[in-house]
């Protein structure tokens, strides 16, 4: 475990939070001016704002806001991931939303939303300032009455915070993507700022619209509750706000909107800064003369699995050094001083190749379970897989704990998997993880895919027979799902293994039949189908969710090979060239085959403006393009010399197509 490097992430997060806190006062000042601005008295407004900003109340609310920013930054650090979680069906998404970890996140955002809204209410002042005010009843007695304006603002904060947290799950807002265009932090921040303003304003608009509708119908509940707990009265002489006339107050709507914008803007800024700081390029030393620092060197960090972000940073660094830095490339090609072994190159190439081989295996496994029309292929292919790939099927709990040797990188199967501590996950997420969530798999398919599933890494740590036995699959589709009007579950799912090899008794068979009937019955219900149907292209996205790592591996290794043509003095690369080429060609074939599947080559819709980064949706296209470019880079560099490289006839034929630029 690279402790020092892991600390880097924490320091970066801390720096980003510090900047967010520093940016808070100017943002608050802009908010104050915008919220109190009146066209008729511009000078008066500004002087009033200045006096307000220096008052004790404002400073107190600023301190509160700083606390909120710290909390948001902490949550960002806690929940971020470099590999997005892709829900393959509606029910999986629902599962993500209802997960306890997500519940904690949502309630934290709710509370922070209330705090920010309270600060907004105090700074806007006027009728929003306090929750109670003295009022006189018709009989002349004075009471404390509920200030509904204050309440509506507080509840708006809670609502916006909650919806922000929910949208975060839906849009994968905790996904941190790495940019292909490197820029300095300040310039990147400056470039993204308009987008953040736009996003927060539009998102606030939608949230306020939804909130107003909700408040119109359900507003009386919190009102009554607050009145009861705080012993306040409702002023019957004032028009209630949860009515059409009360809500059609333009000034109220404006204040709701500007407060929501302020809230979302400060949070988005914190998120943006976090992303910018955390994805900054980190230079790992290629080799060190001291053994104590050896664990911080690039070849070592590359092979580490945890934390995932460090592996990504190392791969990014590898891709950049192979492209831009001749002196560091020189270190990669160098030999160890006593012994004369190319340890650096060996470690790097081995890691890259295992990444690529892993992806190939995943794609082949997926393709084998899925015929192009969504039905399973013949049983024989599946059973072949069984022998080759899986050995530790029956080891339930051990399997859960120990990383499988075949998997180099696991996709955390849910958002809730912390990428820093990627330990075993709670079994609760199991029914909602991608791909195994669809129980509409026929038993034969299930039997067929069981071993394959074990070697397909996107089930990662969650999927284990042990867990799955506790959550039995209830139903499966039959062909009449199409008669239902719903599309057939496109790429058939990889379902849970049933490892019990007990002989089916009569009773068990009877139960099995009943189960099938129940499944048939449920499969015809529209709502169930809606929940359990696969989202198109989601499984394809899930398959390539961590492909940024493969892209860097491909870039890094192909640039290194290109550079080796002139820079590699000892010929260390030449020995690995055949295996690298064949690895790339096999992957190329697998990727080509994958893109022939339905939905695999359909482009995702461009989302208009959201803080969620949609790059994960197009990673498979990026991978395909990078793979081709990488092969072309090698073929153009070596040209006819490739004829001297040993490889199978099939691969040579394929490579020849690249040499002639026909692919």
């Amino acid at each position, binding site marked *: 475990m690279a402790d020092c490097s892991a600390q880097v992430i924490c320091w970066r997060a801390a720096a980003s939070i510090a900047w967010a806190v520093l940016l808070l006062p100017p943002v608050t000042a802009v908010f104050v001016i915008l919220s109190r601005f009146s066209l008729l008295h511009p000078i008066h407004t500004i002087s009033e704002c200045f006096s307000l900003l220096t008052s004790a109340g404002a400073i107190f609310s600023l301190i509160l806001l700083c606390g909120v920013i710290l909390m948001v930054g902490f949550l960002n650090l806690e929940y971020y991931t470099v590999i997005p979680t892709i829900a393959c069906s509606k029910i999986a998404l629902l599962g993500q939303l209802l997960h306890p970890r997500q519940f904690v996140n949502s309630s934290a955002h709710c509370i922070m939303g209330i705090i920010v809204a309270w600060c907004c209410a105090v700074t806007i002042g006027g009728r929003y300032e306090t929750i109670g005010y003295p009022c006189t009843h018709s009989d002349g007695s004075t009471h404390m009455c509920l200030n509904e304006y204050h309440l509506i603002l507080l509840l708006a904060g809670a609502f916006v915070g909650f919806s922000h947290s929910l949208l975060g799950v839906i849009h994968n807002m905790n996904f941190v993507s790495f940019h292909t265009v490197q820029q*300095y932090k300040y310039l990147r921040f400056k470039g993204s700022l308009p987008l953040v303003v736009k996003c927060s304003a539009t998102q606030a608009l939608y949230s306020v619209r939804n909130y107003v509708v909700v408040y119109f119908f359900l507003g009386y509940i919190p009102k009554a509750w607050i009145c009861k707990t705080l012993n306040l009265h409702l002023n019957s002489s004032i028009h209630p706000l949860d009515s059409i006339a009360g809500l059609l107050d333009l000034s109220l709507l404006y204040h709701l909107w500007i407060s929501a914008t302020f809230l979302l803007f400060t949070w988005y800024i914190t998120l943006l800064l976090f992303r910018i700081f955390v994805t900054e390029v980190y230079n790992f030393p290629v080799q060190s003369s001291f053994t104590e620092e050896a664990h911080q060197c690039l070849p070592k960090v590359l092979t580490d699995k945890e934390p995932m972000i460090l592996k990504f940073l190392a791969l990014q660094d590898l891709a950049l050094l192979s492209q831009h830095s*001749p002196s560091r490339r020189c270190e990669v090609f160098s030999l160890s001083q006593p012994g004369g072994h190319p340890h650096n190159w060996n470690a790097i190439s081995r890691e890259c190749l295992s990444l690529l081989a892993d992806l190939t295996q995943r794609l082949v496994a997926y393709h084998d379970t899925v015929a192009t029309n969504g039905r399973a292929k013949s049983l024989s292919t599946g059973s072949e897989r069984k022998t080759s790939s899986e050995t530790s099927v029956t080891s339930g709990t051990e399997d859960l704990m120990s990383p499988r040797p075949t998997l180099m990188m696991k996709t955390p199967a849910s958002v809730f998997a912390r990428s820093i501590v990627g330990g075993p996950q709670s079994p609760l997420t199991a029914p909602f993880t991608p791909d195994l969530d669809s129980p509409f798999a026929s038993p034969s398919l299930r039997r067929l895919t069981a071993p394959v599933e074990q070697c397909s890494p996107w089930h990662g740590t969650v999927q284990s027979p042990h867990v799955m036995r506790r959550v039995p699959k209830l139903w499966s589709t039959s062909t009449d799902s199409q008669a239902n009007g719903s599309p057939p579950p496109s790429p058939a799912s990889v379902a849970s293994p049933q490892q019990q090899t007990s002989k089916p008794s009569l009773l068990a068979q009877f139960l099995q039949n009943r189960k099938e009937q129940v499944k048939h019955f449920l499969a015809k219900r529209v709502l169930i189908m809606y929940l359990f149907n696969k989202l198109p292209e989601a499984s394809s996205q899930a398959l390539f969710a961590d492909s940024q790592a493969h892209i860097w591996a491909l870039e890094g290794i192909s640039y290194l090979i290109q550079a080796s043509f002139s820079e590699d003095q000892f010929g260390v690369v030449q020995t690995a060239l055949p295996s690298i080429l064949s690895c790339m060609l096999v992957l190329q074939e697998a990727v080509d085959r994958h893109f022939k599947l339905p939905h695999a080559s359909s482009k995702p819709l461009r989302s208009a403006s959201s803080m969620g980064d949609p790059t994960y949706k197009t990673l498979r296209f*990026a991978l395909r393009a990078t793979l081709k*470019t990488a092969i*072309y*880079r090698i073929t153009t560099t070596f*040209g006819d010399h490739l004829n001297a490289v040993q490889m199978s006839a099939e691969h040579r034929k394929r490579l020849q197509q690249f040499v002639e*630029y026909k692919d």
Partner: protein
Amino acid sequence: MCSLALFPAPLPDGQTTLCESNNELLSGSDAEERPKQVRSTQPQASLGLWFDRTADRNYQLTYGGYVQHHNPILLFKKASYPELICNNSAVSFPPAVPKCLSVSSGCTLALLQWVSSFHGSLFPHLTVSYFFLSDCVVRAFAWHPHTDKFAVALLDDSIKIYNPKSATTPTLKHRLQRSVAAVQWKPLCASALAVACQNCVLVWHVDPCSLSTRPSSGCAQVLSHPGHSPVTSIAWSPSGSLLASASPMDTAVMVWDVAAESCVPLQRVGGGGVTFLSWSPDGSHVLAPTPSALFRVWETRMWTCERWPCVKGRCQSGCWSPDGSRLLFTVQGETVIYALTFTDAPGSPGISTGTSKGPQAAAVVADLSETSFNTAHGDVIVGGEIQSLAWDPRGERLAVLLKGDPQAADRPAIIAVFKTRTNPVFELLPCGFVQGEADAEPRLMQFHPSFQHGALLTVCWSSGRITHVPFYFLSAGVPHFGLSGSPLLPRPQERCSALANQSLFTEMIS
């Protein structure tokens, strides 16, 4: 410094330049004699395409591989942006409209017109005229960086792809493919072609093995960004990973991640839009001139830029040496070529990061002021302003397109070719003029990126003809990286006979 006075005299009328061989430029008299001559001397010299918009025949095969091609004539007026606004606002109201309304609308329009007249002074990039909408039938031309195929964008906004190895000539048409200004093939890829259009950049994926002559518009990716139009120049990074696009009306250069269809705008204050882009062959720098007297050189590692204010006018064109260490550029209103040297050429060992100090000032390397030559048909004045520059991928020939004066008969637009040498010192030596047919002016030119036997200059003429002028020479420097290192055959005659059966283009019969 090299000047035009050292050049051999231009050819008389009717003579066209065929090729360079044995260190001299050979010429032929006219089209009738050419096939014979071609067969005997240089095979590639006269093979070419001819897009003729006066001919009313489609695809007529003429001798020697000429292809005539008819296209609908779309003439675009050269107009600047404020002019367009003025034209739009000159609306006459129908008489039925009440007078007060028409008067008030007229006032509003006048006010708008008055405000829009400030546009030009506030934003200099808005006054750039669409110079690319010229009368030439060929709008844009691009060689594939690794093979012998090329793409030609025609005046009717269709793009044709010619490949000597395949019988099909795919025609690319798309709903959004309007006012095509530039095309470029993606490096390290067989199929991707980027097209700069009015409102977007299209990236076509044309399968080289496909037999279809009309790829569907589903093969094209659309890259668009609000406010980024018209796109007039594009440049792929030499590694094929990024695509930059620029518009004279947009101050930002867009750097696209094509697979993700996402872009990063690179914006700096000052200068206005970006008139064209040129990515250095080593991938380390991008030249981005603006419509005002300022150009920028972006460094591609962290995307920072150097500002280069010019004294006189805007940067007209520029080109990079093959190793990316030297930039040649010309300035509007001046008749010299400037050179900038960037010392941090990657590949030089010892420099770890690419942020070393750049040059301080540009040096004049060639003077192309007007020079008169005495020919048999009287004096011909050559020289003046420079339209564009092209440097061959080995860094041995530099083609300079001189604007000339379209009104004066004795001042033709002409291509001057220099021999260049970078080691031990940078040097320009005269080579000669490349001329086409009598009335044809050169419009576009590009060197073949991977010609084995020297350099091959492709010129698009105003008559719609595209010709290839090969320059046969032995490379003086080390064999260029990525090209075949096998030595060329020693004697030109033998070489020619070896080349005679290797055709660069298929002759099309249809």
